[in-house]
């Protein structure tokens, strides 16, 4: 079973994502702020990471750059959730190696399809 980490500081959104991905049959780990997320990322291995960009303590970008700079983890797909549509944020995200951006508001079912695709790619 594939293991996914969701990092999102808005508890309500976190819950929706958690329930949805559990329903899709993944093993889901959650973090409600950047620090928790960072601790988890450091200690465990995930098949995919879904993280908000703006979180207290540690931002999504830092988590992203940690993963993409770790030779063992850098193949893990990282999807960034953002309400910020600023070009430089997107550019920064992609230059750090983000696999995809999800803009709020988004369609949960579409997200679930995307995640399926990234996980499949990674298996082969």
């Amino acid at each position, binding site marked *: 079973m594939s293991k996914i980490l969701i990092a999102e500081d*808005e*508890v*309500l*959104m976190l*819950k*929706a994502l*958690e*329930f*949805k991905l559990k*329903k899709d049959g993944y093993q889901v780990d959650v973090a409600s702020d950047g620090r928790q997320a960072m601790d988890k990322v450091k200690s465990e291995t995930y098949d995919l990471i879904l993280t908000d960009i703006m979180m207290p303590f540690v931002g999504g970008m830092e988590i992203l750059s940690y993963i993409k700079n770790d030779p063992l983890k850098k193949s893990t797909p990282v999807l960034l959730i953002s309400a910020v*549509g600023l070009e430089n944020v997107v550019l920064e995200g992609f230059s750090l190696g983000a696999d995809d951006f999800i803009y*709020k*508001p*988004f*369609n*949960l*079912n*579409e997200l679930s399809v995307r995640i399926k695709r990234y996980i499949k790619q990674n298996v082969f």
Partner: protein
Amino acid sequence: MNFFETIFKYIGDTYTDRLSYFPTNIRVSLLIILFCIVAMVELYIYILFKRASKNREEKQIKYWKEHIDNMLANVVIYDESDDTDEIIAHFYPKIKKMPLRNPIVNNILTTEILTYHKNFTGKVPEVLAVLFHKLDLDKKSRKKINNKNWETKIEGIREANEMEITDMAEEIVKYTDDENGLLRMEAQAAYIKLSPSNPFHFLDRAQERILDWHQVVLFEIITKNKKLAIPSFSKWLRSPNDTVVMLCLKLIDHFMQFDAAEEVQRLLKHHNPKIVKKSINIIGKLELEDAEKHMFGVYFDHPDEIKLEILNSIGKISSGNYAEFLSSRIYSADTKIKMEAMYAIKNDPDDGENKLKEIFKQTTAENRTLIKHVLDNRIKP
């Protein structure tokens, strides 16, 4: 008599029998001491009471939040193909069972529905809208809009806005020119989204200033809302309200509305320097070559801030008609003007950088340092 009894007796006497024998200042001091002690005791009781009631409320909030979180998270994870009515039929009775009259429960439920509605697209907002209506929460929003209190009005308007309850637009429009800034802004923001036929009607009647802050908010809403029919904003450029003109200029800039070209050029003579500056900026972005001569004509009449903007604009248009003018500005006495002129030359798509490099060879030492700065792409202007 022990020690404490002596003290109490002393204090008692001081405030009773002896009080009238003290000089005035001492008597006043004694009264102030008494007042302070009473005030302090009351403050302590109040602070403790506040803490206790807050703790109690927090516990309640935590309990209900957990409960409602779980319930709503289950509502939003359905597939697109699932039937809306079925989902509602499944959850509605469960929600109804909660003590919805409790303001805490009601508030949490409302905010959470709003949050999900705002953050998701597709099936979710559809289901939530039906739920909102079925729970009579929309009636509550309407009541809030007509409340006396401006804070409550704002809450109601926000709810109508988030849930896209279009038939409330008529009730909201009357607040778009209210004297209370926050209420006015909230009403304008909601009206744009809710008015089906004429979302920018409020600009016609805006007497009150649209503060810069409100412009930021309105700009975000107008530029991010894909469903909105964008009008030609040039029609408000003659508004007597400068803030309306400013907002429209920003929007003309964002949407690159070339049809506004003539009106924007007219604004070069506007009395408000901020508007003049923004107009020049737009002329540059839209590359309105016709306007170059007008800008050149007024260049020397303006303060530095506007001069810089003109140079920048001429650089963006880069028609070549004013190349000599730009090169002459490199010898201005003001460093900022020099730099801006250099950037303008560099901006010329027709090999601007090389032109600047040519100038570099035959200019003063000071200008050389500046040109190096301008040519260094690692430094962002």
